[in-house]
């Protein structure tokens, strides 16, 4: 009996049939810039802990925080401990925390301080020696994009961005990826001057959500839906991402950006791409990207942007029993701001599959309730063997993919009302993720962080997709910039009055999500 050979990429203990064996990240460390921010405290650090608790992080994982605060390692450990305890999804286990905390480091400094980055380089190197992180490090830039150039430059200068053979260095950036096509390219140039394209991970946390991944399963693992997923049967598609909150204290970030740049450019256009794309030949990153890019490049804007888009800005008033401020009254806001907090646009896709099927995208703050969904609305049956009275209450069939909250899928169709008369009315058939599967599926950030550490890119948009999205959005934003102020709308409603005629012109109405 000769022992089975072990080699690089050849591990006899790994077997494709062994589906119990967890995917554990290899030796590695994570450096978070902007570790005092909300994202790091509420999402990133808890996600790191949850991964550790699920046994998916390597022994000796290193977590380094970088910020301006004058902290020692133990101060940061305390902050991390509290943030994790408050926000982790899995139960807090002291033993897991104790092991994790041994790999926690803190480096204090400004982004402009060469010394600080030299200290960071030393810290990372020490982690390699003490914790066995083996030279593999991911840098998470949880900082405003304006700081990217400086941080990237410092990473390059301090040698942190260069990997030795057999090791990796990766950089993770969050939206917004620029504010238009030009700036997106500039931003990308800055990052890619320092890191090769395959080492840049752009996080769109929506793509890490179970429901979004389920969209692919729903479409491509079933025989039931794909045959009708085209212009022969689909009347139109509505993609909605609504928030019931205002911008709060984020005036500095939000003003000048607005709903279209903040949400449509990334989340909604990604959802559109996943809804409309052709079947990829496989589920590896390149194949998925090819299909998404194809469909994004086939998107056509309406000729008359004024008639087929709408925008608004929320007013102050009473919403759900609470008095809320109008956008222009928010703290630190420029009182003449023309930034939109509601945006709705119509897009067409010039492919055989979608010819004549409009995609309506809308997003906004201070809307009726917090909801994200994709609604595929079908054409009416070509012939109804009932008279008009009998089908008065029958709407159009629809498949609604609820991304959040209450993740799941709803199908709307007509059913006979009990009684002697033939009467048909809409009913819903409901699949709730929470009913059929776990009550707590992994957080999007858990999945995405693990993918970064494993170097698994399918869920991350690439630069080409980012550029294509800006090419779609730029003309609309330019049009709005030259056409006065956005219309105001009452908080807690479904947007400005002009949103309704926008669809009425096409003979359609918005769904109430």
């Amino acid at each position, binding site marked *: *009996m*000769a*022992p*089975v*050979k*072990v*080699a*690089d990429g*050849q*591990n*006899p*203990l*790994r*077997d494709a*049939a*062994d*589906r*119990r*064996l*967890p995917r*554990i990240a*290899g*030796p590695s460390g994570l450096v978070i810039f902007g570790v005092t921010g909300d994202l790091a405290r509420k999402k990133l650090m808890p996600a790191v802990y949850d991964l*550790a608790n699920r*046994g998916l992080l*390597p*022994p*000796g994982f290193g977590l380094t925080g970088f910020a301006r605060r004058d902290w020692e390692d133990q101060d940061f450990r305390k902050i991390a401990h509290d943030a994790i305890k408050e926000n982790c999804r899995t139960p807090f*286990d002291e*033993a*897991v925390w*104790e*092991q*994790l905390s*041994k790999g926690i480091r803190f480096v204090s400094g400004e982004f402009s301080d060469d010394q600080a980055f030299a200290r960071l380089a030393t810290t990372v190197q020490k982690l390699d*020696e*003490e*914790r*066995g992180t*083996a030279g593999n490090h991911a840098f998470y830039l949880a900082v405003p994009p304006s700081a990217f150039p400086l941080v990237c430059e410092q990473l390059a200068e301090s040698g942190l961005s260069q990997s030795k053979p*057999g090791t990796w260095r990766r950089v993770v950036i969050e939206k917004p990826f620029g504010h238009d096509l030009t700036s997106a390219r500039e931003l990308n140039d800055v990052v890619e001057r320092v890191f090769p394209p395959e080492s840049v991970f752009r996080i769109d946390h929506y793509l890490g959500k179970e429901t979004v991944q389920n969209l692919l399963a729903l479409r491509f693992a079933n025989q039931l839906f794909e045959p009708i997923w085209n212009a022969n049967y689909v009347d139109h598609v509505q993609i909605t991402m609504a928030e019931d909150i205002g911008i709060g204290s984020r005036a500095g970030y939000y003003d000048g950006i607005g709903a279209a740049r903040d949400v449509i450019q990334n989340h909604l256009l990604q959802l559109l791409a996943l809804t409309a794309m052709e079947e990829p030949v496989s589920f590896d990153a390149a194949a998925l990207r090819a299909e998404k890019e194809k469909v994004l490049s086939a998107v056509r804007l309406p000729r008359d942007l004024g008639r087929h888009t709408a925008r608004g800005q929320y007013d102050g008033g009473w919403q759900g029993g609470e008095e809320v401020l109008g956008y222009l009254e928010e703290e630190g806001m420029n009182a003449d701001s023309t930034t939109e907090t509601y945006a709705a646009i119509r897009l067409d896709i010039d492919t055989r599959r979608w010819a004549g099927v409009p995609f309506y995208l809308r997003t906004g703050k201070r809307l009726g309730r917090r909801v994200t969904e994709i609604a595929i609305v079908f054409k009416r049956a070509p012939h109804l063997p009932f008279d008009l009275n009998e089908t008065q209450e029958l709407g159009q069939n629809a498949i609604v993919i609820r991304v959040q909250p209450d993740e799941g899928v709803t199908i709307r169709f007509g059913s006979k009302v009990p009684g002697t008369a033939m009467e048909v009315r809409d009913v819903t058939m409901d*699949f*709730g993720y929470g*009913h*059929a*599967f*776990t*009550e*707590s599926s992994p957080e999007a950030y858990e999945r995405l962080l693990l993918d970064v550490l494993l170097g698994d890119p399918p869920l991350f948009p690439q630069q080409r997709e980012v550029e294509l999205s800006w090419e779609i959005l730029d003309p609309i934003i330019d049009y709005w910039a030259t056409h006065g102020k956005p219309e105001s709308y009452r908080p807690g409603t479904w947007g400005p009055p002009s949103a309704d005629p926008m669809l009425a012109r096409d003979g359609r109405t918005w769904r109430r999500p």
Partner: protein
Amino acid sequence: MIITLKGTNTSEIGAKLVDLREEGGAVALGRVLTLVIVASGDDIEPAVEAANIASREHPCRVIVVDPGDGRKSAGLDAEIRIGGDAGASEVIMLRPTGPARREVDTLVIPLLLPDAPIVLWWPHDPPEDMAADPLGKMAQRRISDVDACTRPIESLRGLAKTYTPGDTDLSWARVTLWRGLVAAALDEPPYETVRSVQVLGNGSRPSTYLFAAWLAAALKVEVTIKHEAGASAITGITLDRRSGPITMRRPEGSAVVTLAQPGQPQLQIAMAMRPLADCLMEDLRRLDPDEIYELALVKGRPKVTTA
């Protein structure tokens, strides 16, 4: 809510379930499987509790068959638990007595969810041949737990003899984290062939045995179990390689594994013993035959030596 039905039959139970659904609407529809548990006496409650926890990930209908007393007169008592008393599942307990214990599969058939897979679980002694058992025959997945048997290693041998695709033992899930750790160690340089393996721990527990058996089958090397008196489970492993051994140790009572190998810092990682519900949850995740379990149980197990 707990509803008790005395002197009943399955159609009455079925009708009651439909009533409850119409009344409460609370009984969710999205069940993905039926879990049948064969248990009696003190084994019932811990098993139902584990199933309730597992049902949060795999909403299921749980049917407990309690073989009960054969000497009593024929009859069937039942209990339905829904809502807070049943996690994300609904639990139906069947207690047939006397001759009603015959043809037990016909008791269960009317209560199975349509189309959904069936999983059979024997928390204590499994039948001699699970796949030939009238209930086991219906199931896609048959889960034993020979750890609870009086002579576990002998029972493990029995499982190997009658292995049919779709069988698993919960002791296999108990070693998943260990397996993951060892596999991850071989993913990293220096990529060296393993020459021999020593597993430390309680040699009379099936999990220790299956872990060793898996390594023997996958690596095709000599694997020895070094029995440690007083150990409750696996306490460590040594993988011998040319440049020196990889050792992992989890001393009895500790929840931390210490890893060491030449030229690298000593590392530690938290790894507690897995609770029963976790293991069950893992087993319900995939219902197709577990070929790797078969490999360990049938091929690897005879190769393991104990010292």
